[in-house]
């Protein structure tokens, strides 16, 4: 029913919250402003960790999908993990794109640039948004798991192709030199620490959310049917004369 034992999950929740607070302190105040980017650097403490965790989440989705497809390791656990992780991946990819855009405006002067990494991230976003749409299509659990697993692997295989082709395309246009990658050599000291701490904090957050989302996925099978039964039940009860003994407390 859960990936982690409840006590562990709770402890993880607190550790996550604490680390996010610490990250905020360092990111917004403790770390110095960058020489070149000035305070816009502070957005990198969110953008970079979010990007790493997004990649991690999609890798987990791909791995879980593969494990489901492989007959010897097939288990509904993997299907649920794949779905849960993909949702988190899309969430973190969205954050990555937004933070990248907010960073780009003051530093590059534009909200968006057709640089390889941004474009690849945008395609990644849509690839897995489509996957999430596919997950929502009803059907028998095994069929759904199979087509989602195959879709996830198709998407995952596509990512390096997209990355390679877009990178090549943009270097041909020689704009890569104008838009330097965010992490130029000057990351050191407190800034480096904050960045790595951010990755740690987001990793904890990812595991914590994955566990919760997984639990929801477990409970949700058949949920729609039960909700329908319940709604009908309530409607029926509402149209009957109320017997004081009948009305259960808390309903």
């Amino acid at each position, binding site marked *: 029913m859960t990936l982690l034992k409840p006590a562990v999950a709770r402890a993880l929740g607190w550790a996550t919250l604490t680390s996010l607070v610490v990250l905020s302190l360092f990111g917004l105040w403790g770390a110095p402003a960058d020489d070149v980017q000035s305070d816009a650097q502070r957005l990198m403490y969110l953008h970079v960790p979010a990007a790493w965790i997004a990649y991690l989440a999609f890798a987990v989705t791909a791995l879980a999908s593969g494990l489901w497809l492989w007959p010897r390791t097939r288990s509904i656990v993997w299907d649920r993990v794949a779905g849960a992780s993909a949702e988190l991946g899309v969430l973190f990819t969205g954050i990555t794109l937004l933070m990248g855009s907010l960073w780009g405006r003051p530093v590059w002067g534009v909200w968006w640039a057709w640089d390889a990494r941004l474009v690849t991230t945008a395609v990644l976003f*849509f690839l897995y948004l489509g996957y999430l749409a*596919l997950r929502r299509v009803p059907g028998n659990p095994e069929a759904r798991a199979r087509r989602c697993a195959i879709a996830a692997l198709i998407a995952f295989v596509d990512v390096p192709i997209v990355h390679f082709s877009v990178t090549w395309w943009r270097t041909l246009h020689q704009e890569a030199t104008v838009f330097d990658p965010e992490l130029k050599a000057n990351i050191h000291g407190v800034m480096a620490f904050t960045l790595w701490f951010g990755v740690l904090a987001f990793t904890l957050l990812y595991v914590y959310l994955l566990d919760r989302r997984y639990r929801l996925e477990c409970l949700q099978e058949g949920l729609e049917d039960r909700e329908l039964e319940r709604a009908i039940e309530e409607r029926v009860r509402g149209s009957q004369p109320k017997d004081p003994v009948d009305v259960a407390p808390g309903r």
Partner: protein
Amino acid sequence: MSLVREASLVAGKDLRIEARSRVTAEQILPFGLVVLLLFAFALDPDRGVLRDVAPGLFWVTVLLAALLAVSRSFAIEAANGARDGLRLSGLDPAAIFLGKAAAVAVELLALEAVLSVGVIVLFDVALGSIAPIVLGAFLATVGIAATGTLYGVLAASSGARETLVPVLLLPVVSPVLLAATRAWEAAIDDVPSESWPWIGLLAIFAVLYTSIGTLAFGSLLEEA
């Protein structure tokens, strides 16, 4: 029966259906031409932009038409329990995949031939080196057809959710759009040496997704 023979059977069936119903010729082709027309409205021929962006517009149009072609490829299986017929026929699912993808590819290539004439005429494009144009188109089409057929069966198996195919297919084939357009641009500018790397990418994509489709189609067809 060999794989090639079985695939030809399936491809032949699909193409014969097309020959009789003429959906691609009478519905999808006009759609493609209309899209080209719309691009002219949107991009104003007098500004001289059209000729420069013609390859890109062409391939976007082809992708949109491919969505229809793939949808059609599975729509013909929906009637009269044809899908069950396919499953029970004893044909190797890999052959069914290859056959259906081949039929879609043939239809798209025919479409592209007409659309290219349209682009040359309407957007005033001159062809430079022919070889990369033809080879690039062929490989891109194989890649699009294979991936489209794969997603087609995937969507068909979830109860005919046709609106799902575009959002699934288009991001995945975006590198094909990228590579095909760049290859054609270089060919039109008569710099074929710049085309070949992109054509290499198209070849890799085509091989990769044809292989994935061949492997995955069987299990997806079962669930349809």
